[in-house]
């Protein structure tokens, strides 16, 4: 196969051509209430070709992996129609490598009956909780083998395994419906989603607790975010804006996002990196064959670097960071986050809340989105903080901020970094991409909260 691919890449008058082939096997299991609603297996074989000529791109995706040479030719012809300038693409030394997935407990080796027994147990815990109306459980595992080759001579095979599990407890009383979810994932180790009985039980009880909780009053508050929600916050509030494809052709945004600009106080360090190992966003090479790195987006409050593909790096005259990722062969790689987090400092949780007279403690995530400048992120759980103490439970809150203001409003960072592996990131049509986010507890001295 390697020779066949290499031959297809030869003799085209293009600045750059790459071929990606992918074999994917996946299992999905869905429960709704006491019904095991869906259990299914999928298999997929496909690929794509991407070509660059004079700054213009052609992209061809297919399921039939025969006649690769014709597909290369089609992509090259498309690129030729588009390209009218000069191609800029970071230089890369050719690499030949085979990367296998080394996994303790590979989900593909775990029998369906074993998986079902585990989820039955979690489901029974949720459904046996009084006032719980129903439950949702969604489990996915996948094993992908990706073969990548470029006209520069790079040839890489990578095998990636991914697991995600989302559990939700739905409580209902007097026409009110409330829910709490729990999302987990791992880079293939099935044991990461075992032994959650106690967490699942607490989740179900919290969902019931929400039925009698009041809604927050809308307005600006001092908010404290737990590590999970702060991870979503850093992903939405800053991570997306550091993706260079938003910036590289936008002169005005470049002026705003100039390296060296101050975004926060000295205590603020924000990192992204697939080279941080063992997390859902970790890998050895990105989908352009660039080695993974660890990138300081913000160091001591100052914008230090951003996330790049080979094209955005070359156009901006910066170094590639190995952040070009494609969710599957149907799409070209675009600039994406990997594992994104705020580095820990020294404060304990008590230090952070002790001098707050009135505020909101928001925990766990439900979702998040951004327009780059303004962003929202929602908590699964929230409490009032009164005179330095956690007070009554509130209905889940949606928080919102402005990137140019809110990062500077972070006035306390805790010592308890935790990474959350349950998230999936969406950008353009490519969702959900495995990523992880994390942070210690953080305090934002003014944040907008939606409410009654």
């Amino acid at each position, binding site marked *: 196969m390697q020779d066949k691919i290499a031959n297809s890449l030869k003799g085209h008058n293009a600045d750059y051509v790459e071929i990606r082939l992918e074999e994917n096997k996946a299992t999905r299991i869905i429960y709704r209430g006491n019904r095991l*609603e*869906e259990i*299914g297996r999928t*298999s997929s074989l496909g690929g794509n070709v991407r070509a660059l000529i004079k700054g213009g791109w052609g992209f061809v995706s297919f399921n039939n992996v025969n006649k690769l040479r014709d597909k290369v030719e089609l992509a090259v012809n498309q690129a030729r129609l588009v390209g009218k300038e000069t191609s800029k693409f970071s230089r890369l030394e050719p690499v030949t490598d085979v990367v296998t997935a080394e996994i303790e407990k590979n989900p593909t080796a775990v029998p369906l009956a074993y998986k*079902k027994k585990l989820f039955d147990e979690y489901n029974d815990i949720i459904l046996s909780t009084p006032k719980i109306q129903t439950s949702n459980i969604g489990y996915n595992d996948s094993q992908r083998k990706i073969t990548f080759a470029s006209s520069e001579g790079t040839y890489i095979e990578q095998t990636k395994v991914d697991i995600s599990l989302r559990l939700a407890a739905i409580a209902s009383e007097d026409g009110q419906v409330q829910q709490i979810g729990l999302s987990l994932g791992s880079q293939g180790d099935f044991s990461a989603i075992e032994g959650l009985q106690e967490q699942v039980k607490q989740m179900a009880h919290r969902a019931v607790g929400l039925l009698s909780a009041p809604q927050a009053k809308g307005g600006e508050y001092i908010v404290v975010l737990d590590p999970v929600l702060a991870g979503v916050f850093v992903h939405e509030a800053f991570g997306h804006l550091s993706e260079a494809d938003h910036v590289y052709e936008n002169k*005005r945004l470049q002026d*705003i996002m100039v390296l060296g600009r101050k975004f926060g106080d000295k205590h603020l360090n924000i990192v992204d990196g697939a080279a941080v190992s063992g997390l859902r966003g970790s890998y050895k090479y990105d989908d352009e064959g660039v080695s993974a790195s660890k990138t300081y987006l913000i160091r001591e409050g100052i914008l230090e670097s951003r996330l790049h593909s080979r094209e955005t790096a070359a156009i901006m005259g910066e170094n590639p960071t190995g952040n070009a990722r494609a969710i599957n062969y149907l799409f070209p790689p675009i600039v994406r986050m990997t594992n994104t987090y705020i580095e820990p400092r020294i404060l304990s949780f008590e230090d952070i809340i002790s001098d707050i007279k009135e505020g909101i403690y928001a925990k766990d995530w439900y979702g998040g989105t951004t327009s780059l*400048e303004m962003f929202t992120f929602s908590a699964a759980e929230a409490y009032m903080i009164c005179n330095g103490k956690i007070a009554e439970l509130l209905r889940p809150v949606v928080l919102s901020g402005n990137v140019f203001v809110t990062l500077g409003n972070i006035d306390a960072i805790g010592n308890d970094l935790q990474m959350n592996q349950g998230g999936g990131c969406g950008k353009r049509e490519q969702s959900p991409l495995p990523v992880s986010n994390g942070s210690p507890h953080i305090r934002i001295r003014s944040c907008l909260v939606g409410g009654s």
Partner: protein
Amino acid sequence: MEDILAQAKKVAERVEVFQVSSKVTPIHFEANRLKQIQDKESTRTAIRLIKGGKVGFAQASGFIEPETLVEMAVETCQFGMPAKFDFPNPKVYPKIDTFDLQIDAVTIDDMVELGEQLIAKIRQHTSDILCEASISRGIASVHIINSEGGEASYNKSLFSMGFEGVLIKDEDMLFVGDSHSSCHPALDFRPIAEEVIKQLELAKRNVSISTKPVPVIFTPHGVASSLIAPLVSAFNGKLVLDGASSLKDKLGEQIFDKNFFLWDDSTLPYQVASYPCDDEGVPSQRTALIDNGAVSHFFYDLQTAALANTQSTGNGSRHGGLPTPSPSSLVIGKGDTSFRDMVVDIKEGLVVEFLIGAEQGNILNGDFSGNVLLGYKIENGEITGRVKDTMVAGNVYQVLKQLEAIGNDPRWVEGFLLTPCLYCSSLSVASRAG
């Protein structure tokens, strides 16, 4: 497909094979100029079989041996849910127009020209705007056969055009956008250009709004980004069956404004969400979900309908797995008030054009809360400018219980929703400026 059906019949009592093939050519403009041309061809084959009374499922993209696909499905059967339905075998399907032969005549040059004209028209209005646009033409073919002799197939042509623009002044970003999709190749950039230019005009200056409840008008985009997600989940037959819908015991009750109507309609000619049959081979239909403000019907697939002792409404849709109830096109009934008359009626209020994050609250309870990505302030019957750093929060059942007015100007948005503007008397607004 026949091979797979024959193989599976040897080991299972009942079988269905579903196949969808598509060929789509999108082109993308970035930073005001053409950046990429794509060509995407894909084929997906799914098998659903019933063995020992239980449902098994497997799916393959790309080549797979029929035996392997059948084995994969059989493996899942032992754990599958008990099948409560029969595969359909209707003698006739409604004739729904979903294919326009003109799609084949659209060239890449036509699409490039269209994108260039669209961007030029908008930059003629606002020269500093940075534009992204996508134009796509495609064809999809769906084919379903089952062991009960049922067979259905249809072709669909798809044409879509989308625009997003960003205008940056200092640290202020303004996002505008619109899109259009149809089975007809609509080679006219003007409707999108006009909508975007209208947004740019209304957002020319920034104004502040205070934190308090005010009257709100949702434009068609505002309806799509604020109110639709909770309604879609509440009318989903599966959530009703689970008891997770707020409407589970409200059938027949008038809980919405008596002038409010909502239909699910998969029969509208040349709409991208239309089809002669759903993904299980059930004929398409128009279903009234809200009729004169009363909860009239929920939407179902075969299995959910059987469990709920009712009939499928032809809303079985596949999202990479087994069919599940999903809306086709949604249509909100039009009223008799113009947008202009709504604005004139408001002393201090807000127009919501785009809301972000609204789907991330507790939509099961009907709650929505989000950041106003694009919205305009009304003062003394006039739109005075754009508001930002502002959140709105509300509950869809309270908002739709009594509407001040319903617009007379429905418009298709997001390819699946036909809606007029909706004017509600009071919604909670929180603002950083206020």
